[in-house]
């Protein structure tokens, strides 16, 4: 992994970063981050905004070679979370990613960052995690960079963190036991880390975890999210994860709208045991901060989490 993107900030033309999934929570954070350090951002999106540098791209469809013309850095965030059938997930998200990565190689993109997930860890049974592992292998085989963000949170409160934050306002929530935990990362730390990974001259060919390295127990996380919004801590009722997952699968099969998919629940209750290769991130000068549920709110008090409180290490 030696591809070095052109540094930003010199007198030449601004380097170009292409971002897939730019309309999503992570993609929009990364779009802003690269723009802030001097890149021209080309959004690869399904629906192109007239008068912008957007290019049409649909994950799983054929990649038009021109979308990556002149691109220095590719950041691949896109993932179709609406799919639930394993064959659809692989056709679109895995094989679609491989096609994009091949297009990046053909276009001579100097640095590609495949955004994976903390759900991708050896032995995971989550389809999302397994699919991400397959895309990681494809990226690493091409000498590209792979990052595994933890649960991303920040003032925008999007993605899974935003969903959990809404759920935290409920009076009663399930307790999936002591093994359920998350690793969290603030939006700003995520942005700094991905930019650093993309711009690094040389990196070991391993996935780079991006999260505060101490696990945060699920109960503690949700409690902090409630308190951070000025709400009382919810009551927790023990629920076997398998029962909860089965109930969600039934609801999914009935087409009921759900805040969390059955497969995502697996990621919550059987998460990665550790943040992978944190030393690589440290070497790049990025150290994610501990979780603080008060970000983006005016609520005073203590919804920050003691960094040692959730540690299993």
């Amino acid at each position, binding site marked *: 992994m030696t591809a070095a993107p052109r540094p930003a900030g010199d007198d030449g033309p601004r380097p170009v970063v292409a971002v897939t999934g730019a309309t999503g929570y992570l993609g929009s954070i990364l779009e802003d981050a690269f723009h802030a350090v001097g890149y021209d951002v080309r959004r690869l999106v399904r629906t192109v905004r007239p008068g912008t540098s957007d290019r049409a791209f649909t994950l799983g469809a054929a990649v038009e070679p021109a979308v990556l013309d002149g691109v220095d850095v590719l950041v691949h965030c896109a993932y179709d979370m609406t799919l639930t059938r*394993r*064959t659809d997930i692989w056709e679109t998200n895995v*094989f679609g990613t491989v096609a994009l990565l091949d297009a990046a190689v053909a276009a001579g993109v100097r640095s590609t960052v495949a955004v994976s997930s903390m759900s991708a860890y050896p*032995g*995971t049974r989550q389809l999302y995690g397994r699919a991400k*592992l397959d895309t990681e*292998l*494809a990226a690493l*085989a091409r000498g590209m960079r792979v990052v595994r963000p933890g649960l991303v949170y920040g003032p925008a409160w999007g993605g899974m963190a935003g969903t959990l934050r809404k759920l935290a306002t409920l009076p009663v929530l399930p307790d999936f036991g002591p093994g359920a935990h998350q690793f969290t990362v603030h939006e700003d730390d995520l942005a700094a880390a991905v930019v650093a990974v993309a711009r690094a001259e040389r990196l070991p*060919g391993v996935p780079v975890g991006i999260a505060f390295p101490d696990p945060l127990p699920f109960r503690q996380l949700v409690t902090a999210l409630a308190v951070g919004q000025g709400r009382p801590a919810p009551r927790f009722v023990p629920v076997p994860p398998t029962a909860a997952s089965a109930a969600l699968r039934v609801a999914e099969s009935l087409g009921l709208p759900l805040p969390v998919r059955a497969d995502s629940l697996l990621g919550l209750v059987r998460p990665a045991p550790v943040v992978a290769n944190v030393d690589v991130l440290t070497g790049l000068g990025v150290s994610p901060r501990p979780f603080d549920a008060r970000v983006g709110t005016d609520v005073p008090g203590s919804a920050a989490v003691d960094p040692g409180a959730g540690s299993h290490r």
Partner: protein
Amino acid sequence: MQTALIIGSGPGAAGAALALTADPTQQVTVVDVGHGLEAELQEVRQHLASTDEAAWSPGDVKRISHQPVAAKGAALPQKRAFGSDFPFRDVGQLAGIHPVGQANGSVVSGAYGGFSNVWGAQLMPFSRATFDRWPVSSTDMDPHYRTALDEMTLAGDEDDLAELFPLMVEGRRLPPLADRTMRVLARYDTHRADVRSRGITIGRARLAFRADECTRCGLCMTGCPHQLVYSASHTFDRLRAAGRVTYRPHLLAVRLSEEDGVASVVVRHTDTGATERLTADRVFVACGGIGTTRLVLGSLERFDRPVTLQESVQFVMPTLSARPGADPRTARNFTLNQFNLLYDHTGEGLDLCQVHFYDYNPAFLASLPGPMTAPRAEPLLAAFLRRVSVGLGYVPGWGAPGVRVTARRNGADALPVLEVDRDGADGWPPMLRGLARAMLQVAPALDLWPVLPMTAVSAAAKSYHFGGSFPHGTERTPTSTDRQGRLAGWDRIHLVDASVFTSVPATTFTLTIMANAHRIASEALGSRS
């Protein structure tokens, strides 16, 4: 001139020789037991190779195409090469090796070219994730893999296997694949997303095989008359003809030592019994995983302490299809491995099981019960052969019990007695159960149904994929080697075969032995003093 001495003539020795002979300042000598194919069989092979196949005498073909014979504790019978057992025959190198229980005793070859005279010819590198756990990176290995692949002549195509195992060099195209293989590959293409989502990847064979010269005579498994399948002996034939190595056969290395910057090897003449002390600036030891372990344990007088080698345990798994293909007996096919199935237990490209699938060859008939091959059973036999493939599979060495060897003192200038045993219980390793489950999940999609009751696991050391007795580590110790294959106390003696593997994955083995030996010898030349 610097002097280099290589012990052995198998793939590890060939890898080291390729690196050493590329340096004109090296004077290279190979000492080897060097037993070869019987002269009369060699004559028959040469006669067939120089004759049009239409004129081949059935008697000649029969003489050099003996089918494999059943072996104790083996799921797979023992192969023959050109009608001979010379790769396995004891010409002194096996004396004092005592297998315990069902363990394999034929673990060291005295043949010129070693066990590469009878190997399966599969060529894939170890995965990147495997090397992540070695002190040698996959990037370090790449140029050495390329050299080895060029030497062995890769035949293979780019397909899904390249995701984990890049081709690295342009391969020759495989000959047309068998009908059953084509059917499986077509179904894989149709159901690729489903199959891949279960952790299974399928691809065409990758073989050390001059495929474009293949006449599809069907004798691959008993010895290609045209010698299109690579053997390490081919490399040494070439280097000897070019005057780049001096080859000394009938010598069995019995002791290694190093004093005052000089490496020494005591060898015993297998014909006279006399011993001789040879010296060199550097010695490269390539007697095979267990052969080298025995030589080193005796040289260092480490007796009565068991040493465990990892073994990628082997199993044989027949598979059947509901839909019949063409009768394979009427087709002209090459009979080496046709396609490979990989199962990734954890999804990170590390805990891989690999199954090499073979379509029909005459050994199938030899392994069937007599009534099935009777004339009246012909319809039944035809129906069976149109549906069967045989998978020869491997489980990673860290997912199964290893091979335990214990050296016992055996007098001066003699190899120690060596007991060979399984370091644990025989039987189905847990990873094989995981593979079986996954294969059952994809069986309807592929129409490839594993016959689990007939799946058999080989006993200790039967796979010939064992190593790691003196694994590469981050530093030299009495039991682990540095990246140049050197143990503590030895600066000029390099172990270059699988005995230095940090781990033994289930993926193909011989290519990495040759490439790693080439790397070690290259790095030793770079650091010579």
